[in-house]
Every structure is written in structure tokens, then in C-alpha cells.
């Protein structure tokens, strides 16, 4: 039996990392599945941009900027420097700054080498606000929905009151459950002291220390759960070592020490998000009238519902509008309608490319949609709202029939 194509397979295909026979298997699946092909193209485009625009170099040290401030008293600006104003034509004292920077170079290098001892780069793409503490004191804070690059010293502690996501070293995606502090020990090495966290680990060694022993990673996607007074590990993909046991895809090491093997495709325990669809205002709809719908999304687990980045418009919530044809069959009215800022009337955006939204277990998110003039002619229409999870096929979860009167 042919193994189903996973998200990891598509990523590997896009990066050219598959052996010939594996590549043939993926190509055959792509040829026969337009939705999978769309997904693959989105991944490939994302990877292309990722390759083409590597991380930028570090900005100048703050001391260099601070030195330049000597000749920059405040209040000496025109209105044009204020928000929404046109820029003021002026040269900053760069020559002076360059001289100062040269004088201070040695001191800055020493300062930076001390500051950057064992740095760990973190991109915190927060579903909720994330606090970063170092030696018990606040070090940084990332507000909900903002992305921030940080260079963390060894021992920095990440914590969030609600589920949130951070990316360590550009290769480890961590979804931290609420009240699950994660301590960054060193590159490739973290410590989870309580709660629960989900890890998706790119190539390279990675280790999660817990009070109940370490979990060593061999390149995988897995969850570590400490909520029940013991270590529980669920391996979604790959292989990890925990409690002296080798856990492979689909394995779940339970808190009582027993081992289960998951059923289902690719050994995943993923539970689909639940979607409810209701009309904001009842009654008949006239042709051309704008229809308002409320979509409620409930995430039964804490896996992320997200658009992973640029060119990912095909991930997330979407709506399909169909019309009942004369032959009694539903006909597609248009391409799936991405539910984005353009047609969300109120409530938070569920999906914003590059800014994942994290919903906690059982957490609910409501969005009111304004479907712009999809009902130009009288007839019976059906609006179907679905969710396109990252790396999986679209799920249609809710549908609503609407009569448009003449």
C-alpha cells in the first residue's frame, strides 16, 4: 500500500531532498490531486522566498546610535518627522558617528562577545503575549500578533499565559501551552519545567529536559506533556528517545509509562477544528445584498491554526459558495474565498499570513464575515466554510443554505 504524502514529504520534494523513488511517489500523488498540488506550489513559493532572502545582518550596536545622539537634541524636528508626515530632508551625523564607532570598536566587540555568549536566536510569533525573563528580571515582551527577533542569553525563560508560538534558531517551532515555562539552556537544548509544549524540529540535534528525564530528538514533530505529574510524549512524526524507549511516528508514551500506537493516517492524533456557521440576520436575501455570517472556530487541541508565512493564502479558513443548478446539483460559483481582512467585518482575523493564530484547547474564536455581492441572481445558494490546515487536505465543516428571492 502506498504511504500517503505528508507535509514533510512536500517540503522535502520542494527542497530536492528526496531520493528518486520517493520523489516519484510524491510526483504521482501531485499529478492526481489538484489540492495537493496547490499545497505544494504554496510551499515551493514560500521556500523560494525563504532561500532568496536570508536573515538580515544585525543592526548597529546601540552604543553607536547612542553616541550619535550627543548632537541630536529632542524637540528640534518639524512636523514632517511625525507619524503620517512626509520625511524631512536632513542628513544625520553619520561621519561623526563613523568616527565614534571606530574609536569604540574594541569596546563594542568586547561588550558584544560577552553579551552574545551562547546566543539563541528566537522569532516569537505570538498567539498570545510572550514574556522573556532572564535571571528573574524582564528581558523582553512580544505582544500578541507581533513578530520579533531576539538573541537570548543562556538561561532565558519564555512564558505565556495563553498558547503561543516561538521559533528557536530558525528550525524549531514550539507551540507553548499556557503557563508552560520553557527555559533556553543552549543552542539545541531547552528545559520544560511544567505544562505542555508541541515541538516541530528541523534538521540537527535537539533536546528537551524535563523534571522526569530528557527527551532527545532525532528530527521530528512531537508533544511533551507534563500536566499529569509525569512525562507524556506523543510523536506525530519522526523518532524520539524518552525514558530509555525509542518512540516512532504515532507512538504515545502515556503518563503511567504505557505505550500506545495511534491509529489514523500518518499516525497523527490531530483533531480537526470545529466550525459553526450562523446567519447574523435572518430572513430572505435580495439579489446583490451583502450577507453577514458568523463563523465560530473551536480548536479541540492546541495545535496551531495558522498561515505559516508568505504565499500561504491557501491555508486557513475559507468559504466556498455554490448555487443549485437546474439539474438539482450544486455548482461552484467561484474559487474558494479566502477569509481575510478584505471580507471580515468584525472580530479578529483567524488567518493572517506570517502571523499564526494559536487557539488553545477548547478555545473559541469568532469572526463575522461580510460576503461581498456573491448573490447577484435569484436562486438557492449554499455557503460552505472550511478550514485548510497546514500540511493537510481542506476540511469542510459547516454549510448554510440561503434563498435569494427575486
Amino acid at each position, binding site marked *: 500500500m502506498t504511504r500517503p504524502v505528508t507535509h514533510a514529504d512536500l517540503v522535502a520534494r520542494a527542497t530536492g531532498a528526496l531520493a528518486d523513488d520517493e520523489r516519484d511517489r510524491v510526483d504521482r500523488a501531485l499529478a492526481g490531486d489538484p489540492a495537493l498540488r496547490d499545497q505544494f506550489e504554496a510551499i515551493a513559493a514560500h521556500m523560494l522566498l525563504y532561500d532568496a532572502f536570508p536573515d538580515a545582518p544585525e543592526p548597529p550596536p546601540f552604543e553607536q546610535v547612542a553616541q550619535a545622539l550627543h548632537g541630536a537634541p529632542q524637540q528640534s524636528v518639524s512636523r514632517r518627522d511625525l507619524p503620517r508626515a512626509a*520625511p524631512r530632508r536632513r542628513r544625520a551625523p553619520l561621519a561623526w558617528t563613523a568616527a565614534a564607532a571606530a574609536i569604540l570598536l574594541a569596546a563594542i566587540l568586547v561588550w558584544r562577545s560577552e553579551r552574545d555568549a551562547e546566543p539563541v536566536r528566537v522569532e516569537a510569533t505570538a498567539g498570545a503575549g510572550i514574556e522573556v525573563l532572564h535571571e528573574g528580571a524582564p528581558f523582553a515582551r512580544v505582544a500578541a500578533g507581533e513578530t520579533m*527577533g531576539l538573541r537570548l542569553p543562556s538561561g532565558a525563560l519564555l512564558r505565556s499565559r495563553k498558547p503561543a508560538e516561538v521559533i528557536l534558531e530558525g528550525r524549531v517551532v514550539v507551540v507553548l501551552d499556557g503557563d508552560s515555562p520553557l527555559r533556553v539552556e543552549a543552542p539545541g537544548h531547552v528545559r520544560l519545567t511544567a505544562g505542555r509544549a508541541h515541538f516541530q524540529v528541523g534538521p540537527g540535534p535537539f533536546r528537551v529536559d524535563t523534571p522526569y528525564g530528557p527527551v532527545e530528538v532525532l528530527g521530528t514533530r512531537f508533544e511533551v506533556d507534563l500536566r499529569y505529574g509525569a512525562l507524556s510524549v506523543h510523536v506525530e512524526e519522526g523518532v524520539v528517545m524518552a525514558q530509555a524507549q525509542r518512540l516512532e511516528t504515532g507512538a504515545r508514551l502515556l503518563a503511567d509509562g504505557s505505550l500506545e500506537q495511534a491509529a489514523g493516517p500518518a499516525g497523527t492524533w490531530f483533531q480537526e477544528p470545529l466550525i459553526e456557521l450562523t446567519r447574523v440576520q435572518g430572513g430572505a436575501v435580495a439579489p446583490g445584498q451583502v450577507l453577514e455570517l458568523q463563523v465560530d472556530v473551536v480548536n479541540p487541541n492546541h495545535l496551531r491554526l495558522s498561515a505559516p508565512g508568505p504565499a500561504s493564502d491557501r491555508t486557513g479558513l475559507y468559504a466556498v459558495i455554490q448555487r443549485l443548478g437546474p439539474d438539482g446539483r450544486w455548482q461552484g460559483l467561484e474559487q474558494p474565498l479566502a477569509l481575510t481582512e478584505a471580507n471580515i467585518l468584525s472580530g479578529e482575523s483567524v488567518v493572517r499570513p506570517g502571523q499564526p493564530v494559536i487557539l488553545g484547547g477548547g478555545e473559541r474564536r469568532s469572526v463575522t464575515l461580510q460576503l461581498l455581492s456573491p448573490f447577484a441572481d435569484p436562486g438557492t445558494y449554499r455557503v460552505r466554510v472550511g478550514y485548510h490546515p497546514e500540511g493537510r487536505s481542506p476540511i469542510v465543516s459547516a454549510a448554510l443554505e440561503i434563498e435569494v428571492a427575486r
Partner: protein
Amino acid sequence: MTPIDEQEGRQPAPEGDDRRGLSDEALMAGVRRGERLAFEALYSRYGSPVMRFLYRLSGDRVLAEDLTQDTFLKVWRAAPRWRPIGRVSTWLFQIAKRHWWNEGAKRRRRRGISLPDDDQSARTPTKDVGPEAHAARADLARAVREAVAALPRRLRLVFVLVRLEGLALAEAAQVAGIPVGTVKSRLAAAEKQLARRLGPRLG
């Protein structure tokens, strides 16, 4: 007192004060009062994003560093008259964009268009990728950078804001100072040009 505080005759922040946990607005309020620690915390928070934005726009590391510094100097000067009427990050990107627009163009005319360094290109994690495949991907990455660098500035700005920085359309419109509809049309135009230029490479 810090040199800035001495020069401006202001009181320094209390010893051991750490403002990095404050909100953007609270930090800006501190910067407005002339507090160096607040300004340092703001720089710590936004120095890298502003640098990355300017680097992606200009493709020139030195220019991006200069413009980042100029941006924060401007923030320091403008702070006393800053009012919390929008997101601080949007304001910073607006200032950065204006610097790039005004001075980046001038420098680029002098130096010609440059591209981001190649040292980290084709960095997508792979396993067992042979040197030929890696070289091909590096070539493709360079072609993409060249195609983006060749976009007209108004299109490149929108493409960088939305596709590379991941800003929402409304926020990109604020930074660019144009309506959301114009952002959409410029984004479409940018992607059309990129597709035309890269089409033969992508097969």
C-alpha cells in the same frame, strides 16, 4: 547620568531599571521624556526588524545600517511630539521607509543596485542535497533577489512589506502611505512582473 541625560539636563532612570517588559506605548512615553533606557529598550525591540526591512528593500548591508541608525535618530528627535495615535511599529516602519525612499534612491544611483549577500542563500534545511542541486537552488535564489531588486521601487516596497515582512494589507498601506486598494494592485503588478521574469527559470 548618561551622556544624553547630562546634555539634556534630564533625570536618569532609576538604577537597575529594566524597561524591556513594557509595552511599545509605555516605552515611547519614556523616550518622549528623554529616558535613555527606554530608548535602548525600544532599539533592542525594533532594531533588528527595522534593519531587516531596510536590508530587504535596499539589498545593501552598509546602507541598511546607516538608514537604521538614521531612523532611530529621527525617532529620538521626534519623540517629544509623538502621540499614541497608531502602532509604534507602524510609525517606525514609516520613518524607515521614508529614509530608504529619499536617501536609498540617491545612493543606489551612485552605486548601482546591489543585492543581499550570498553567504546565507539557499539556506532551507535539506538532507543529502548534492552540490549540484545546492548550486542550482543558490542560482535560483539569486535570480529571485535580482528579480525583486529590479522591481520599480513602489512595487518593491509593497512586495517587501506584504510578502517578506508579512504585514497585513491595511498596515502595509499605512506604512507605504497609500490606500489598501493601491497596495493590492501594486502587489499584483509586482507578482506579475516577478512571474514574467522568473517564469523561464521556474519552468
